[in-house]
C-alpha cells in the first residue's frame, strides 16, 4: 500500500488508526494461507506415494500369487504407523527432550488444538516470523513415517507372515524411525534464535545430527538409509525365497510397476518440495530439482542398462526414476540445478550396480532391491548434498547463524560438510541396522517370521489373506 498517494492529512490519520489493531498482531504472526494450502496438498501427495504408488510399484514386481499380500502389507502398514504416529510417534520425534528422543508432551497429539478456545498450536518453519499450524506438520510428518516403514517391506515380501510384518513395524518404527527423525530434524525453529545465548540453549535442545550440522532436506538419512538398511537386515534374517535361483520369478506386471513409479514421482513433489514447509523459493528449487534429477536418472539408468546389459528395459526406466527421487531427497532444497544434473546422472548407473553387482556380492534375497536403490541412493544423495550445497557449485549454501534476521548464509567447505554428512550417514546406518536386527529377531523368536513352506508355494494371497488378485 502506497501511503504517499493519500494526500489529505485526515485520510492518513484515519489509515493509521485502522492499522492500529493490525500492528498489535505484529509480534504474533499467523500461518500464511498459501503455505497452509501447499502443506495440506503436499501431505496428501505423500500419502499417494504409499497408497497406491508404492503398493503398485512393489506389487507389480512380485509373482501374481503374492500381489495382494504386498498391497495389504503396504496398506495396513501405512495405516498402523499413522495411528502410532498420532498416539506417541509425533511426540517422541518432534518435541524437545534429549538429542535422541523427544518427550511425552504431545501424546495423542495433546495440545495441537485447543477445543475450548478454538485455537491451534503453531510450529516453526525455516523462516522467522512464519509459523505453520502444528497440526499440519503432524500430518505431513505422519506420511513420512508411514512410507518409510512401508519401504522396508520390499526386502521381505513373498515369504513373511502378515503378523510378523505388523509386529516388526511397531518395534522398528519406535526405536529406529522415531529417534532418527528426532536426531536429524528436531530443532526449536528460527524464532527461538534471538541472541548468542539463546542459540546455545536451542542448539543443545536439537537432535544430535541436527546439532552436528548435517543437511537432510527431505529424508535421505531418515527415510531412505533408515529403511534400506533395515530391509537388507530383514532379508538376511528372513532368508531367501523358496526356489530363488532355480525357479524363474519374473515380475508379474511391469505395467503396475510403471504406474507405481510414475505416481511416486508425482507424489514426491509433495515429499521434497513440501519439506520446505512453506510455498516459497526453497520449495520451488526442491520441486525443480526433484523433477530434473529424476529425469536424469531415468536416462542414466536406461542408457547404462542398454550399454552394459543389452536392452533398455521398462523396469530399468522405472527403477531409475525411483533411484533419482531417492538421491535428490536429501539434496532437494539444499543444492542448485548443477547438483540435480550430477546427482541424477550418477545415481542411475550406481543403483543399477546396486541391484546387480553389489547384490551378488551381498548375497541376500533383498527381493525388490530396497538396499540397492534406497540405501545406496540415499547414501550417495546424503553425501553429495554436502558438496553441491556449495554456492560455488550453484548451491544455496546453509544457514550459519540463525540469530540474525534474515539468518546468515554461508558454507563451511566441501571436506568439512562432507565429513558431517558422512557422520550422519554412518550413525543412521549403524542405528537402523542394530534396531532392525533386534526387531526381526524378537519377531522370529516370538511369533515367527516366515510362513510355512507349503503356504509360500501356494502364495500369500490365498494362504495369508484368503483371496486372489486375479481370476483366470
Amino acid at each position, binding site marked *: 500500500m502506497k501511503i504517499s498517494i493519500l494526500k489529505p492529512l485526515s485520510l492518513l490519520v484515519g489509515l493509521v488508526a485502522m492499522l492500529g489493531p493490525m500492528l498489535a498482531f505484529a509480534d504474533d504472526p499467523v500461518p500464511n494461507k498459501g503455505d497452509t494450502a501447499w502443506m495440506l496438498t503436499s501431505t496428501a501427495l505423500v500419502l499417494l506415494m504409499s497408497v497406491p504408488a508404492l503398493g503398485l510399484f512393489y506389487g507389480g514386481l512380485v509373482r501374481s500369487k503374492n500381489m495382494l499380500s504386498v498391497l495389504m502389507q503396504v496398506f495396513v502398514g501405512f495405516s498402523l504407523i499413522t495411528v502410532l504416529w498420532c498416539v506417541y510417534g509425533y511426540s517422541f520425534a518432534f518435541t524437545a527432550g534429549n538429542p535422541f528422543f523427544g518427550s511425552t508432551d504431545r501424546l495423542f497429539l495433546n495440545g495441537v488444538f485447543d477445543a475450548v478456545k478454538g485455537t491451534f498450536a503453531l510450529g516453526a518453519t525455516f523462516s522467522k516470523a512464519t509459523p505453520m499450524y502444528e497440526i499440519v506438520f503432524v500430518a505431513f510428518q505422519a506420511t513420512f513415517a508411514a512410507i518409510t516403514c512401508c519401504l522396508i517391506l520390499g526386502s521381505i515380501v513373498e515369504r513373511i507372515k502378515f503378523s510378523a510384518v505388523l509386529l516388526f513395524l511397531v518395534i522398528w518404527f519406535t526405536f529406529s524411525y522415531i529417534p532418527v527423525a528426532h536426531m536429524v530434524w528436531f530443532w526449536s525453529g528460527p524464532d527461538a534464535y534471538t541472541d548468542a545465548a539463546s542459540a546455545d540453549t536451542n542448539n543443545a535442545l536439537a537432535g544430535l545430527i541436527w546439532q552436528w550440522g548435517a543437511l537432510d532436506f527431505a529424508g535421505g538419512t531418515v527415510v531412505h538409509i533408515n529403511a534400506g538398511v533395515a530391509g537388507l537386515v530383514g532379508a538376511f534374517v528372513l532368508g531367501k525365497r523358496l526356489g530363488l535361483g532355480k525357479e*524363474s520369478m519374473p515380475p508379474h506386471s511391469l505395467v503396475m510397476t510403471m504406474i507405481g513409479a510414475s505416481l511416486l514421482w508425482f507424489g514426491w513433489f509433495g515429499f521434497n518440495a513440501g519439506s520446505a514447509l512453506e510455498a516459497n523459493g526453497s520449495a520451488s528449487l526442491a520441486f525443480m530439482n526433484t523433477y530434473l534429477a529424476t529425469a536424469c536418472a531415468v536416462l542414466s539408468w536406461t542408457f547404462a542398462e542398454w550399454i552394459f546389459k543389452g*536392452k533398455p528395459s521398462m523396469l530399468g526406466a522405472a527403477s531409475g526414476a525411483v533411484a533419482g527421487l531417492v538421491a535428490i531427497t536429501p539434496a532437494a532444497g539444499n543444492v542448485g540445478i548443477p547438483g540435480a544434473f550430477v546427482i541424477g546422472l550418477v545415481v542411475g548407473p550406481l543403483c543399477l550396480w546396486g541391484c546387480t553387482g553389489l547384490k551378488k556380492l551381498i548375497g541376500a534375497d533383498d527381493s525388490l532391491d530396497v538396499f540397492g536403490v534406497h540405501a545406496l541412493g540415499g547414501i550417495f544423495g546424503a553425501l553429495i548434498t554436502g558438496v553441491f550445497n556449495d554456492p560455488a557449485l550453484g548451491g544455496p549454501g546453509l544457514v550459519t547463524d540463525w540469530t540474525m534476521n534474515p539468518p546468515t548464509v554461508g558454507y563451511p567447505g566441501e571436506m568439512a560438510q562432507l565429513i558431517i554428512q558422512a557422520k550422519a550417514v554412518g550413525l543412521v546406518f549403524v542405528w537402523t541396522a542394530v534396531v532392525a536386527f533386534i526387531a526381526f529377531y524378537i519377531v522370529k523368536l516370538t511369533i515367527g517370521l516366515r510362513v510355512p513352506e507349503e503356504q509360500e508355494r501356494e502364495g500369500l494371497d490365498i494362504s495369508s489373506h484368503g483371496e486372489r488378485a486375479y481370476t483366470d
Partner: protein
Amino acid sequence: MKLITAVIKPFKLEDVRQALAEAGVQGLTVTEVKGFGRQKGHTELYRGAEYTVDFVPKTKIEAAVPDSLLDQAVEAIISAAGTGSIGDGKVFVFDLVHAVRIRTGETGDAAL
C-alpha cells in the same frame, strides 16, 4: 481314420484353419501350449535376475479326418503354417480307432 496333431506358430492359426476348411476338414480343436524344439527360447533380464525362458508359446491343433482326406489335410497345414524359419512346428499323424458323434450316435467316418 487318422488323427492329425500339429504344433504351429500361434500367428499361423487363422491361415491353417482356412486351409484345412478349404481341404474339406470339418472340425478342429485348438489348444495354447508351450514347448521347445530346435527353436531356442529367450532370456529375460529383470535388474540383476536373468531368467531363461525355454518353453516357447505354440498352438496345438487336432483334427480327425477320413483316410481319404489325410494327404490334402497334411499338405494344407504344411503350406499354411510354413514360414521357412526355425520353429514352424511339427505335424504328427496317428491311427484313429473309433469316433462317435455324441448328438446322433453316428460312428466312424460319418461321425467326422
